[in-house]
C-alpha cells in the first residue's frame, strides 16, 4: 500500500473527510469550549459565523440526514406525540423529535445544544415558528434577522438598508456577545473572497449539465454537491478545494463524453433531460432517484440546488462590501423570490439546459415551495411548450411517500414524452 503514490483524493472522498471532521468538531465543541450557532440554510451567514470562531449547525441538514438514515419517521412521531400537528412542516417535527430523543446527530454523536439561535428569517415563515419552539426547549439567546421578500422581483435600497442595519445592530453584537470576540472585518473580507471563488466554481459545476449528455445529475447528485457551499464551508479553503476537485472530475467526464453518474454506474443512455422544481424526498431518496434514472432520465437543473442561494445570476460575496453582500445574498435565495421570478428562472433553465420537460415535486411540508407550484408549472408549460409533470410526497415524513403513485405518474409522464417524440419522428414537418 505504501508504495502506491498518493493521488489527489476524489471530490467525494474529500467531502466525506471535511464533513467527518466537521461533525467531530461539533461533538467535541462543548469540551473544547467552542460555541455553537443553530441557523438555517437559505441565505445563511456562514462567513459571519465562522469569523467569530463559532460553529454553525443546520437543523434542516440534520433532519434530511436523519431521513436518509431512516430515523426521521420516529422523530416526527415523537414530535407529534409532544403535541405538534400532523399538518405542519416535517423538518420542524423531525428536529424537535430528534432533540427530545437525545439530540444524537447525523454522525451518531450527540450534538451540542445551541449557544445562539440565529433565526435568519429567510424565504420561509415556518423558520420563525421553528426557532420560537426551539427557544422554548433550549435556554439560550435568539437573534432574529428579518429578511424582506422580493415581492416585486427586485431588491430596493430600503430593503438592503433594513437588513444591513439588523446585521449591525442585532446579529453582529449577538455573535460578539456569545463568542466573546470582536467583529473582525479583515477576516470577513478574506472569507468573502474565498466564498466568491467557491461560488464561481460551483456555478461552473452546475452549468456543466448544459452539456449533452449531462455529466452530472443536478438534483439527485446535485444535493450532495451543494452541501459544502450551503453549510459550514463557504468562505473556507476547504470549499474552494472541494469545488476544484469536483470541477476537474466533471470536466474529465465531459471530455470522455460520459453520461451522468447514478447509483448503478453511468447512465446507460440519456433519454430525458429534466428540470425539477421543489425539494427532494429524503426518506426514499434513492428509490425516487431510481425511478428517474432507470428510465434514462437525468435532472439537468433544478431549483433545489439553489435553496441556499443563487449564484447563476452573477451574485458573489463581495469582499469590499461584505454586509451589503450578505444582505443581497439572504434576499436572493430561491424561496425568497416571487412566484413570477421563479417562473422566469425555471423557464430560463429549461432553455439553457436544453431540457425536455419540467417535473414539479411538491412536498406536503413546505408551503414556501409548494403554494403556487401548480401555477408555476402551468406558466412554464405555457412559455416553453414542453410537457410538465407533477408528483407529490414529503420531505422527511416517510408516511407520505407512495412509490406506486409516483411511479404511476412518472410512467405516464415519460411515456407522454416518448409519444410526442415518436410522433415528431414520424411527421418531421411538425
Amino acid at each position, binding site marked *: 500500500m505504501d508504495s502506491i503514490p498518493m493521488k489527489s483524493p476524489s471530490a467525494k472522498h474529500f467531502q466525506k473527510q471535511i464533513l467527518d471532521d466537521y461533525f467531530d468538531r461539533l461533538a467535541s465543541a462543548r469540551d473544547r469550549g467552542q460555541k455553537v450557532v443553530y441557523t438555517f440554510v437559505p441565505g445563511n451567514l456562514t462567513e459571519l459565523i465562522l469569523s467569530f470562531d463559532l460553529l454553525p449547525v443546520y437543523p434542516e441538514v440534520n433532519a434530511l440526514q436523519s431521513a436518509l438514515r431512516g430515523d426521521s419517521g420516529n422523530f416526527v412521531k415523537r414530535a407529534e406525540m409532544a403535541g405538534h*400537528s400532523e399538518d405542519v412542516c416535517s423538518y420542524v417535527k423531525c428536529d424537535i423529535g430528534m432533540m427530545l430523543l437525545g439530540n444524537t446527530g447525523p454522525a451518531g454523536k450527540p450534538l451540542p445544544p445551541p449557544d445562539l439561535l440565529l433565526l435568519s428569517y429567510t424565504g420561509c415563515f415556518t423558520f420563525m415558528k421553528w426557532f420560537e419552539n426551539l427557544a422554548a426547549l433550549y435556554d439560550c439567546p435568539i437573534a432574529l434577522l428579518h429578511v424582506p421578500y422580493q415581492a416585486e422581483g427586485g431588491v430596493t435600497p430600503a430593503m438592503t438598508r433594513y437588513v444591513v442595519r439588523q446585521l449591525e445592530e442585532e446579529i453582529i453584537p449577538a455573535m460578539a456577545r456569545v463568542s466573546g470576540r470582536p467583529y473582525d472585518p479583515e477576516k470577513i473580507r478574506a472569507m468573502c473572497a474565498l466564498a466568491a471563488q467557491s461560488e464561481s466554481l460551483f456555478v461552473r459545476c452546475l452549468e456543466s449539465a448544459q452539456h449533452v449528455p449531462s455529466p452530472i445529475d443536478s438534483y439527485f447528485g446535485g444535493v450532495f454537491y451543494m452541501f459544502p457551499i450551503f453549510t459550514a464551508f463557504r468562505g473556507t479553503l476547504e470549499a474552494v478545494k472541494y469545488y476544484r476537485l469536483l470541477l476537474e472530475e466533471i470536466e474529465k467526464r465531459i471530455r470522455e463524453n460520459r453520461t451522468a453518474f447514478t447509483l448503478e454506474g453511468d447512465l446507460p443512455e440519456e433519454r430525458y433531460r429534466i428540470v425539477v422544481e421543489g425539494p427532494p424526498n429524503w426518506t426514499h431518496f434513492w428509490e425516487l432517484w431510481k425511478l428517474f434514472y432507470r428510465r434514462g432520465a437525468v435532472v439537468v437543473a433544478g431549483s433545489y440546488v439553489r435553496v441556499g442561494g443563487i449564484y447563476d445570476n452573477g451574485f458573489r460575496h463581495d469582499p469590499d462590501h461584505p454586509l451589503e453582500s450578505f444582505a443581497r445574498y439572504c434576499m436572493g435565495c430561491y424561496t425568497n423570490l416571487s412566484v413570477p*421570478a421563479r417562473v422566469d428562472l425555471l423557464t430560463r433553465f429549461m432553455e439553457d439546459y436544453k431540457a425536455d420537460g419540467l417535473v414539479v415535486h411538491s412536498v406536503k411540508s413546505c408551503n414556501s415551495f409548494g403554494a403556487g407550484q*401548480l*401555477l408555476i408549472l402551468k406558466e412554464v408549460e405555457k412559455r416553453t411548450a414542453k410537457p410538465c409533470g407533477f408528483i407529490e410526497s414529503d420531505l422527511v415524513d416517510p408516511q407520505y411517500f407512495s412509490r406506486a403513485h409516483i411511479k404511476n405518474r412518472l410512467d405516464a409522464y415519460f411515456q407522454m414524452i416518448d409519444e410526442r417524440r415518436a410522433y415528431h419522428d414520424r411527421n418531421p414537418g411538425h
Partner: protein
Amino acid sequence: MTLPDFDRLKALWEDPEFTEVAHWQARHPGAPVVGYLPAYAPRELVYAAGGLAVGLWGAGPQVEIIRGDIYYQSYICRLPRSVLETAPALGAFSGVIFPSICDVMRNLSGMWQILFPHQWAAYLDLPQNFSSETGGRFFHETLIDLATRILGHPPDAAYSQRLAQAIALTNRQTDLFRRLAGLRSKFPWKVPMDEWYTLLRSALVLHPEAHIPMLAAYLALAEKRDSRPLDHIRVHLAGAFCEQPTIGLLKTIEASGCYIVSHDLLLGLHWFTAPLKETGDPFESLVDGYLNRSGPAPFKYCGPREKAETFLALVREHRADGVIFAAPSFCDPSLLDRTLLREALETHGIPSASFKYAENTCQYSGIAEVAGTFSDSIRLWPKES
C-alpha cells in the same frame, strides 16, 4: 333605535359577487377600491385616498371551489382557494394587499401578479424588527410605497392630512370594538357570539362611516339588554386569526357550554390595544401602532417567554376558565404557535382543548363534543383548591 339587520349583514360578506362594494363604487365613481387579505393591513391608507378597503377573508362554505383547487395541493389551507374562487368578482378593484403572515399568503401575492395583471398586488412586509430606527424605518418606507400605489402618485401634504382623519375614524371604530368586547367579556349573555362576530366581520365590507353608527347603536341597546346568563364556562378562542370558521361553528361552541369571552378572529380589526396617535406624522402613527400598540399574533415575532406571558395575561384579563385552540387545517403559523401556548397554559394549570377546522366545516358534531367535554370537565369537577 333598532338592532341591525343581522341577516343582511351576513349576506354582505357571504356574497361572492361583492354587490355591496359595487353599489359603493357606483356612489363614488373613480374612488379606489382595495382588497386586503388577513390578518392586518393599514386600511387607513385607503380611506385617506377616498377609497373603500375590503377585507378578503375567505368566501365561506357556500362557495363551491373549482378555480381555487386548480392551484393548490390538498395540504394547503382553504383560504386562498376561496379567495381565488371569488377573484373574478374583484375586477373593479384597483389592487389587493397581501400582508406577510405566512408563505401561502406571500406566494399568493406573486400568483396574483400573474393571474390578474390588470390589478396591482402589493405584498405588505410587516417588519419583525421592532426598533423604530430599523424596523420602523423600513415599515415607514413600505407604507409610503403602498400609499403611492393606492394614489397612483406619491403622497402629498393633503393626503397626510386626510390620513390623520382616517386614523381618527378607525380609532373610533376600534374603540367601539373594544367596548363591545368589554361588554361581551363582562356579560357574555348580552352580546350573543354570532352578533358580535357579524358586527366585526361586516367591517370588512362596509366603510367605517357606515359601520360606526350601526355599531354605536347596537352597543347602546346591548348594554340595556336583560337576558339571563347560562351555566357556561368562559373560554378564550385562539388560532383563528386568518381563515375564519363558520358562524355555525362558533354557535356550536357556545351551545356546547362555552362562552367565547375573547378571541383572535378577524384579528387585524381589533388587535390594537390602544388608539393610534392622532397627532404628528400620520405615517409614523401607523408605524408606531404596529410596533408598539399591536397585540400578540402568530405571525409576529416575539421572544417565546414574552409570547407566553402576553398570552397568559390575556387569558387572565378576560377571566377565561380555559382556552380553545381552533386552528385552520394546514395553517402552520397557528398550529406551531399552539404547541408553545399550550405548554405555557399547562405550566399554569389552565386547561385547554383544541381542534382544527376549515371555513367550510359544517359538520359540528365532533366540535360539539370537544367543546362540550371541555365545558363538562370544568363545570362538573370544579377546580381543586
